[in-house]
């Protein structure tokens, strides 16, 4: 079982950080970074090399990370962000283990243009009209019994408080571990489907928010394993149940007036077809984006509708804009970068979002959608990539390297999926033909 260490104080200076690591009996430090898919990778170093790491002298072979390098650019540098120092809630070789989240740099000192964390930094800097946007997150996931299947320990539903639910015990342990790592937990609860849970994070700066998603996914998997369970952030593991989303709340606290919020919504809607490729990056993502379980399918906004793509909870003076399409399989750095960039573009261009919809978006007829100028979200990863190809704004936010690396990888993924013969096809056709 994991243990809960005391909350570490994060020092700003290198010397203080090394001292703190020694005081906390840290044996190993994991230098964590995200690949272009948002999968958490790490290089573990003995604590004695922490000084070297903080000086940016730890290199790794970028050629072994998907989408990172092209031929000659093999050696890459890890640049730890001291603000991300945290102790893992488990032991290592009789001591403790810490982590630092890193940006990726080139050996010549330049930032690596394919680094998702750097891309998010750049997007936040470019989106000055948003004026210090903060991000709140709702992360949904499933806890299944270990073994690779989809059996759950409960039959719970939305907000259920059931006895004998091992999933709930595991979720509480996950939350406990995340709190120990200083994640700003707002709340946690059971979700629609059996075995489905949600953890909500309080609003913070975008970089920290993306770091938190990376941490949450890692910790949830580790802690769930302690309980004999598998935590999965796959968007739609069960065909006939709700999928898992990653609702992103943009808090535009510094917005001048209501018009800024409207323009941000306009930008999010206008670029939604293209941002979908980034926010819903797997073939499985599109099985969640169907007209059921309040998943968004149309580019429409609302104050109250639970299945609108963008929700602006009243009153509008609260300056909160919730994007409901992303799923937890996304690369959080890239997803936040394109969403912040899209909202910033809407503000810069004064993009209006049309009228807010009252009621369910699923009830919209084709004629109503045409009248309101409501589009559809892509229905497949292939379609989403085509939309990304056609949107120069979103492509510019990603930068050439990331756009091409992501696009090539996802087209290959889609092609593998397209060629695969699925069980559904065997069930439907094997005996029929």
């Amino acid at each position, binding site marked *: 079982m994991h243990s809960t260490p005391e909350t570490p104080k994060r020092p700003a200076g290198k010397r203080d950080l090394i001292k703190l690591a020694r005081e906390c009996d840290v044996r190993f430090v994991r230098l964590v970074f995200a690949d272009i898919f948002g999968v958490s990778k790490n290089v573990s170093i003995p604590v004695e090399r922490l000084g070297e790491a903080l000086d940016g002298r730890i290199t790794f072979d970028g050629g072994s990370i998907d989408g990172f390098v092209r031929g000659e650019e093999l050696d890459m540098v890890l640049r730890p962000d001291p603000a991300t120092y945290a102790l893992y809630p488990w032991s290592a070789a009789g001591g403790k283990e810490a982590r630092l989240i890193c940006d990726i740099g080139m050996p010549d000192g330049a930032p690596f243009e394919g680094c998702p964390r750097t891309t998010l930094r750049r997007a936040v800097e470019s989106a000055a009209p948003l004026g210090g946007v903060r991000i709140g997150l709702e992360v949904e996931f499933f806890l299944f019994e270990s073994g690779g299947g989809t059996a759950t320990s409960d039959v719970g539903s939305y907000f259920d408080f059931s006895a004998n639910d091992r999933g709930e015990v595991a979720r509480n342990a996950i939350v406990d571990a995340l709190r120990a790592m200083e994640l700003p937990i707002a709340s946690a609860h059971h979700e629609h489907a059996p075995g489905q849970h949600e953890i909500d994070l309080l609003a913070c700066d975008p970089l920290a928010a993306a770091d938190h998603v990376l941490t949450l996914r890692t910790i949830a998997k580790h802690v769930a394993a302690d309980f004999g369970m598998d935590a999965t952030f796959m968007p739609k593991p069960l065909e006939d149940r709700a999928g898992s989303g990653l609702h992103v709340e943009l808090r535009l606290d510094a917005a001048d007036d*209501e*018009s800024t919020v409207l323009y941000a919504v306009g930008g999010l809607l206008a670029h939604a077809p293209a941002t979908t490729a980034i926010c819903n990056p797997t073939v499985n993502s599109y099985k969640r984006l169907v007209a059921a379980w309040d998943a968004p399918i149309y580019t429409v906004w609302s104050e109250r509708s639970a299945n609108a793509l963008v929700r602006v909870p009243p009153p509008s003076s609260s300056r909160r804009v919730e994007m409901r399409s992303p799923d937890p399989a996304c690369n959080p750095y890239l997803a936040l970068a394109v969403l912040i960039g899209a909202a910033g573009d809407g503000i810069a261009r004064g993009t*209006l979002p*049309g*009228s807010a919809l*009252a009621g369910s978006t699923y009830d919209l007829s084709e004629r109503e959608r045409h*009248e*309101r*100028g409501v589009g559809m979200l892509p229905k497949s990863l292939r379609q989403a990539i085509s939309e990304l190809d056609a949107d120069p704004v979103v492509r510019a936010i990603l930068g050439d390297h990331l756009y091409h690396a992501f696009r090539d990888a996802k087209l290959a993924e889609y092609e593998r999926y397209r060629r695969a013969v699925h069980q559904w096809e065997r069930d439907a056709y094997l005996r029929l033909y």
Partner: protein
Amino acid sequence: MTPEEVVRFAEAQAQIAAEGGGIAALTRHAATATAAAIVLEDPEGRRLAAAGEPPDPPAAATVELPVRAGARDLAVVRAYGSPHDRPALRLLAAALALELARNGRAAPPSDAFWQRLAEGTFRDLDAARDEAAAAGVTLAGGYLAIALELEQPEPGGAPIRRLRALAADAFSAGFGAFDRGNGLAVLLPVERSLDASNGRTAAALLPKAAAKRQPPLHLAGGIGTVVPPSEVRRSLEQASAALSIGRRIHGNGKVCAYDELGAYPLLYEGGGVERLRAFAQRTLAPLRAYDEKHQTELLRTLRLYFEVGQNVKTAAATLYVHRHTVFYRLRQIAEICNISWESPMDQLTLRTAVAIDALHS
């Protein structure tokens, strides 16, 4: 004028333009420098600026120069005085062209067309279409009229031109506009409801955008309803009424939509029994439809709530329900009718509709 005097004239004109003096100041300066009377007119013959003493009745000008932006005629400068000052007048025409083009369609050739459309002077829709084509305009399926008015009457055309520039920034391309008193009438083409909703939003945001300009503009406005091209006049009348009502209710600095003012247009414009009945029917229709579909008593609850002086406890007792049920129904009513119980205007609208319904249904 000597070459040195012409250079000094050009420098002075540039200085006036740089300080934002506008076409009136440029024309005044030129009239003083050349000791001529100068008149600036748009292609439809409307006077944009004048200085000195033009002959009355009008006579042939000594010098007549076009004011052009590319191939487009923006205006004509007519000077009455010495023909020897032609170089200075050519400089004036160039400065005026720059000023008119920069301020955005000061007098586009289609202005007269939009004004005629709004006045409803076309024989029929075909005649309107023909004239639209001649003015380089393609008629849309519908129009939404917006009346904008500067809060302070300001002399000269510069503020109105700035208002035009503001409108050009706010609304999608293809809108029509013409000067109207101390303001501007804007006609937005509407092909889909999206065009109307974005047009309303853009119009509602105009006062704040105007106040941020340097120097600030202060304006109020009204928005009509979407109408076919043959009924643009009605939409503009509604917009004007909304502007007047909005000013009386909210003060200045707001752009109000006619169909969001509830009972106020009825009280402002008056009307016969038919109009009263139509208002009540329109306002209460969503509640009637909901009651019929869900077998609820929302309309009855609303009537009773007003009858007992908006006392929830008494209403609950009369209806034999718990007071929480009355609260719940009131929330349902607000959602279905898209009103807020905190808004006195919305309360008045429902109350008026219920009263008319009781009297005339």
